[in-house]
């Protein structure tokens, strides 16, 4: 059709175009909603409220201290409880940093080894210093930090 504008539109060609267009519309109506349907859960915004970790009184100077906190999350149609573990470090009793225990290499969980004065990751021997800096092994960047605040001796971190 495109190469002969002066040629009359034949019945056969009209039907071809009509079938292709109607089929295209039906295909789009059926196919396009599938994309957001599949991607939906991936695009969902996570909540970013403050999580109360606990009293800072147990945090000693220059020693990463483990805090455990069970938080409620919703995954799909299931309400689950998830335990998060973070290390809190202070060098002056004023400023606190809160580090994730998730290795920045491939997301195994790191552990503070007091005798070695470092964090170790069991999966691929990643080693981090007490402030989270990479000392050895494959991790590409320091341990992730949470945004945190201290109110009346209680430390909070921001979710997400």
């Amino acid at each position, binding site marked *: 059709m495109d190469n002969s504008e002066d040629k009359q539109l034949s019945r056969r060609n009209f039907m071809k175009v009509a079938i292709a267009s109607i089929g295209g519309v039906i295909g789009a109506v*059926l196919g396009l*909603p*599938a994309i*957001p*349907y*599949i*991607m*939906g*859960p991936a695009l969902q915004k996570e909540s970013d409220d403050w999580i109360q970790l606990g009293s800072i009184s147990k945090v000693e100077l220059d020693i990463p201290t483990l805090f455990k906190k069970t938080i409620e999350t919703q995954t*799909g*149609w*299931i309400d689950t409880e998830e335990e998060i573990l973070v290390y809190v470090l202070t060098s002056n009793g004023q400023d606190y940093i809160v580090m994730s225990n998730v290795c920045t290499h491939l997301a195994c969980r790191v552990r503070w080894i007091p005798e070695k004065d470092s964090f170790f990751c069991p999966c691929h021997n990643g080693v981090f210093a007490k402030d989270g800096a990479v000392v050895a092994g494959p991790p590409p960047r320091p341990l992730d930090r949470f945004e945190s605040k201290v109110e009346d001796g209680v430390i909070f971190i921001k979710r997400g």
Partner: protein
Amino acid sequence: MLIKIGDWLDERFSWREVWAAIFERKVPHVNWFYTLGSATLFVAINQAVTGILLTLYYVPTPDHAYDSVVYITTQLPFGWLIRGLHHWGASAMVILTVLHLLRVFYFGAYKYPREATWISGVILLLVVIGFGFTGYLLPWDQKSFWATTVGTQIAGLAPFVGDWILRIARGGRDISAVTLARFFGTHIWVLPATLAALVGIHLYLVIRIGITAVPKKDE
């Protein structure tokens, strides 16, 4: 460019011959009732596509079945549409298949040489009803639970083998997690495989033998 690719593929697959055999075959002058078979096929494809999409989220266990269906319908973008198409398409499948069967019956199109087409079609109707029966349980709400209770109880009334059929259908004496799992497995694996094979045979025969003309008054 596209024509070149088409030519390249045609040289290897001869797909144009196949295309011509399927879409450019001679058909007698017929009426709109002859579109019922294609309409059924179209809805069947809709059921397959939306059904596959539903399995991305649906979980066939008593703990999760209902919640996952609610999640699909209320939380996911266009989940209501995908489930709605599958839900209403299911009814459309049964209606269209029966209408198609009636057309074939009243036009006498089941006669020689199309008996095999007819027989495969009748089995296809049973498969479609099987889809409806197994799919009805999957939302695991009150309606589906009691409908399946009644449906399997009816099967249980068959003389001699009834109780045996009921137990096989339910996977035990009661409707349970076992029932839900086997209905789901039947609905998404056994029946689709059967349907695909039979549709293949059915369409091959339609193309191979051709369709009947509208019967004349004196026939």
